[in-house]
């Protein structure tokens, strides 16, 4: 049996839940067709999560590529199809990238599976981040190094904890729905690995509590710096990322298993819930960091 998974026109972290609602009930070895033909836009989260979705399936899925030329060529520009071709059977015509000089792309979809990959990502982003963050988003020059640090830390979570490879992408875009058209820079890091709960459960001497679920695991890790390692130096990475988003009025959200935790901005540009539970199951961890443009 084959099931068609309809992808929403606008594919980002919230709307990706619609995809997971369709996929989660299906057996892992059931063939799926992911239909992006009518997609009009996808965030870095949407693209990286689509790749993680394919990795999570036993049976190689089919991807109907977007019909709109500008969408297809933009996904090409983001190197999405380059990686998707390894994981999906692509059906439909993939357009070439329109322009290699697409300034909104800070980092194309990039595979992360080992420490060297993090070095490559950091080297790449440093060359592009200064202009994008300081000139286009009016942020203080101090942000560039901190932004890269945050990116490095979230990528390392894959290498250190996921147990299998994942994806990262970084892009700037104008957020029309919220923020009244303000620009944002978004980092998305998605993997289909063991996730936060299973990672903590592998800690030596771990004892399950009365209430122990994905939401608790996220709270322990993100809010209290817990780690599966006994080394007290562990768990600082995400704490540093939290501090970074707090300083720049940004947002951090992490989904793992059936829950999603969000560290929300002090400003009123986002009205998300701090913790969402009982979501459709998706393995691994999906991280998104959003930093908004500074306005006077």
């Amino acid at each position, binding site marked *: 049996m084959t099931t068609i998974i309809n992808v929403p026109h606008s594919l980002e972290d919230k709307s990706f839940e619609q995809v997971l609602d369709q996929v989660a009930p299906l057996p892992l070895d059931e063939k799926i067709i992911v239909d992006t033909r009518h997609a009009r836009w996808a965030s870095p989260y949407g693209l990286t999560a689509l790749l993680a979705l394919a990795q999570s399936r036993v049976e190689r899925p089919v991807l109907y590529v977007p019909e709109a030329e500008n969408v297809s060529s933009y996904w090409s520009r983001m190197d999405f199809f380059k990686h998707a071709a390894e994981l999906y059977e692509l059906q439909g015509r993939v357009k070439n990238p329109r322009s290699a000089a697409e300034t909104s792309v800070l980092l194309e979809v990039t595979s992360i599976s080992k*420490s*060297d990959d*993090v*070095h490559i990502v*950091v*080297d790449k982003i*440093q060359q592009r981040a200064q202009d994008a963050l300081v000139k286009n988003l009016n942020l203080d020059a*101090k942000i560039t*190094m*901190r932004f*890269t*640090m945050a990116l*490095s*830390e979230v990528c*390392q979570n894959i*290498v*250190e904890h996921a147990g299998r490879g994942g994806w990262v992408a970084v892009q700037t875009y104008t957020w029309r729905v919220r923020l009244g058209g303000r620009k944002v820079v978004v980092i998305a890091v998605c993997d289909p690995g063991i996730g936060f709960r299973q990672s903590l459960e592998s800690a030596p001497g771990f004892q399950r509590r009365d209430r122990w679920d994905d939401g608790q695991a996220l709270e322990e890790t993100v809010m209290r710096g817990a780690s599966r390692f006994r080394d*007290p*130096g*562990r768990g*600082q*990475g995400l*704490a*540093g990322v939290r*501090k970074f988003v707090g300083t720049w009025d940004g947002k951090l959200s992490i989904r793992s298993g059936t829950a999603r935790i969000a560290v929300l901005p002090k400003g009123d540009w986002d009205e998300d819930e701090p913790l969402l539970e009982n979501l459709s199951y998706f393995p691994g961890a999906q991280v998104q960091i959003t930093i908004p443009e500074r306005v006077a």
Partner: protein
Amino acid sequence: MINHIDVSSMLRKSVCELYSNLVTRPTGAAVRCEIEQELDRIGDRALTVIDFSHVGLLDFSCADEIVAKLLLQYVSIDTPRREVYFLFRGISESHMDAIETVLERHKLALVTQHPDGQSRLIGIVDVDHRRAWEVICQLGAGASADVANATGVSREEAERTLDNLWRRRLVIRHDDGYVAVGSATAPVENTRLDA
């Protein structure tokens, strides 16, 4: 004797010729091992400048591996491994974010030196100890009597404080007194630790 370790060179030597950023835990561990090998070559008593001037990015994992774990091995109230003192140079504002975070986590402290020669004590140090360190730093070199006079504590208390700072390798003990690590006015360059 003062030794100089360029962290960027250690990175290129131990991990990859092309890297200039200190990111990821394995990278940090490799660089620390390289620094430790260097320290093994320079004897049991030394002042070593750890220079970050040519390091681009330092993330939390690398700061933990290089700075915190290095200090944990050589700086301890109970059983310091050897009499090795560290002076950190070339620390940028963004390096400082990562370094201060790991120092806080492990309750450690270190001395940084700025380009103008001024030194600063960063990390976890209580008020009395910080004051004592500043007194020694301002004097260039001093003894418990100097700290007692300047801070109003008893000489015994001042001696205990200085002994604690010495065990944490934040002051250098020599002859009858102490020199602050990185003291701007002390003739540190001429201090022979192996005397």
